[in-house]
């Protein structure tokens, strides 16, 4: 918030733009969060005696040019845009409205899945070289804090917890239990050679087969 406040310090009228897909589902940038962030900014600024006007809008997917285009009129009205979309959405906005400063309001950290309402856990590192078939469907690259491929490190805590966080399960203990249950522990005994970290060249690109 401090970052956002500072970034917005120069502006008197902004658009707070949400995205109606992924970030809505994970409670980071849907219509509700847009409302809250805008209100928070207005409160902060009025407390400082320097009111700010906020427009609010949420589009279906901020990573789609056509959908972002709906915001044209609103963007024209304001000095800057604060986007609650993921990095892709922010970059789409920035490309579409090249002469307006676009600020990211969320730090996109990981691709996760919901564990219960309001709690998401990182599950996939989008590495492009998937091992899930060999690890009982548990990704060691992301869910092991060290991303080890050949078994647990020596730091596992009592009860199979991670060395960096007693509340986090050791991914390799989970993999062991799942493979044991499936009678596939041989998979764990196999040696996995060093990973190809260039399976995805940055920046990543996917071309769907042309019809």
């Amino acid at each position, binding site marked *: 918030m401090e970052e956002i406040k500072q970034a917005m310090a120069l502006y008197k009228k902004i658009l707070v733009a949400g995205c109606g*897909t992924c970030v*809505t589902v994970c409670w980071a940038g849907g219509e*509700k969060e847009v409302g809250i962030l805008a209100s928070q900014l207005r409160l902060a600024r009025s407390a400082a005696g320097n009111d700010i006007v906020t427009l609010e809008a949420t589009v279906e997917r901020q990573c789609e040019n056509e959908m972002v285009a709906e915001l044209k009129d609103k963007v024209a009205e304001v000095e800057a845009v604060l986007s609650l979309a993921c990095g892709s959405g922010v970059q789409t906005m920035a490309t579409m409205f090249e002469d307006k400063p676009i600020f990211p309001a969320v730090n996109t950290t990981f691709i996760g899945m919901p564990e219960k309402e309001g709690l998401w856990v990182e599950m996939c590192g989008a590495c492009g070289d998937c091992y899930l078939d060999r690890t009982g469907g548990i990704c060691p690259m992301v869910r092991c804090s060290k991303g080890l491929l050949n078994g647990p490190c020596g730091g596992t805590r009592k009860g199979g917890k991670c060395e960096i966080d007693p509340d986090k399960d050791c991914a390799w203990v989970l993999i062991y239990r799942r493979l044991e249950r499936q009678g596939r522990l041989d998979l764990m005994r196999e040696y996995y050679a060093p990973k190809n970290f260039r399976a995805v060249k940055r920046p990543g690109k996917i071309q769907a087969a042309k019809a």
Partner: protein
Amino acid sequence: MKNIDFDAVAEKVARMPGVTCVNLVSHLCLDEGREKMIASIREENLDRVIVAACSPEFKEHIFRQALEDAGLNGHLLAMANIREQCSWAHEGDVTEKAVELIKMATNRARLLQPLERKELPVNRKVLVIGGGFSAIDTALHLSRVGLRTTLLEKEAVLGTGTGEWQSLHGFDNSSMTAAVEGDRNIDVLASARMTAAEGTIGDFTVTITREGEEISRKYGAIVLATGFRTELAPTSTLKLRTQAEPISGISIVSQEQLFHMLHNSIVEAKPRTIGFMFDFSDENSRFPTLTTLNNALAAKNKWGSEIYIFCKNVKVDSEGAEKLYREARECGVVFLKCETTPRMSMDNGRVAVEARDVFLGEDTIIACDLLVAEELLLPIAGTETLSSLLNIRLDSRGFYQDENVHLYPVASEKKGVFVIGGCRGNLDMGRVLTDISSVVMSIHELLSSGKIQVEIERVKADPQKCVACLTCIRVCPHSAIQLIRVDTGKDVAVISDLACDACGVCAAICPAKAIEFQGYRDDQTLAQIEAIGES
């Protein structure tokens, strides 16, 4: 309401935007006042009504009805509580505050929308899960009020397990099962389990698995009457006898085993001294108290044994317990009040119980031929499975239903699902009977007419805005929301008008702001805030 200048209020309110007429009426809730209200709605062709009077807690329904009588939807009423929360709450003149409260109500009223009411058909059949006393009795009562019931029992016959020994509490199991057999309204499914359940009040679809075969049935309500089980309390350090067999020499037995000895078995040698223990591990000991008193009296009468009862407290607030206690005392049963659990040891074929008597202040050692150990009353196995199938919570002890003072005693948080008797931790007979009559009355009221009145779309998720994030489904305390594929092929949250209890938890948490709760929409709440402090 002497500290409000009503003429001044009327004058100010009349100037509020959209206000057509202001009437000052004393006793608006009496016939005279209501008639006046109806008349002005008709005469002035009003489309919203604000009542500034006493708390809506008391008379809101009367005023809603008045609106309906005047041909206006009852939900177009807003109230300003200028009595309890204004005039009476403050000393000195509160005219200004009254005006502001009315302004808040006016702002809200402007945004109110009518709610359609509809009659929906309900299935009149009831599923009762369990085959013990409370299940059977509920089915028999429901039959008497003309409702058809299925009794779902996991054992092969009704009344197993607790059957005979329930007669201790004064009912006859065999005549009850006979009554069930002769009752055409009751259908018994034995050796069967519920393996899936979906739907809402009035329309549950239940999958029952019997001998590997799946049956699908539809019901309007579900009653859980699965009873409880007992387990030797951890305080009883010595091992329980595994079978109820004629005693020869020493023994530690359960209440049920003692009951069998007293009523069915030939006992080789009558136990001269019997000890009972209860109320050390679980303070909820009404049921053990009753059982102990009954068994102690029976043993005294049949065997003439010396009887010692070790307990922290004797809980005699259940029906008949006080009388039993008095009888026990009169015929010489000794009660020893102990603060801590007595120690037990084997002593030459007898059980030595060592306890500190609180009143005597000294240690007493009593050698018993028979010790009736303390037992814990626990939920039966499978309670968790059923609770997750039906989506209802368990309390800290694992029984159904939190001790939630706001819920109707036998209603669960899910409309149409009821919990009675032992499986909700209600263990003495008097309370079980109360549960049975409550559940029969509730279900009769709900299902007997075959239809139910509901307000349509009071809480609704906008399918356009819903992103199917499942949040509302996960947070709904009444499991009233489901993900359903709509015509457009999209999965969206759909709130069941029947199951919804109108709390608004979903509306507050929806990250897409897709859920609207008529009467408590965001804009209606914010409009009230807008009015505050304006004047």
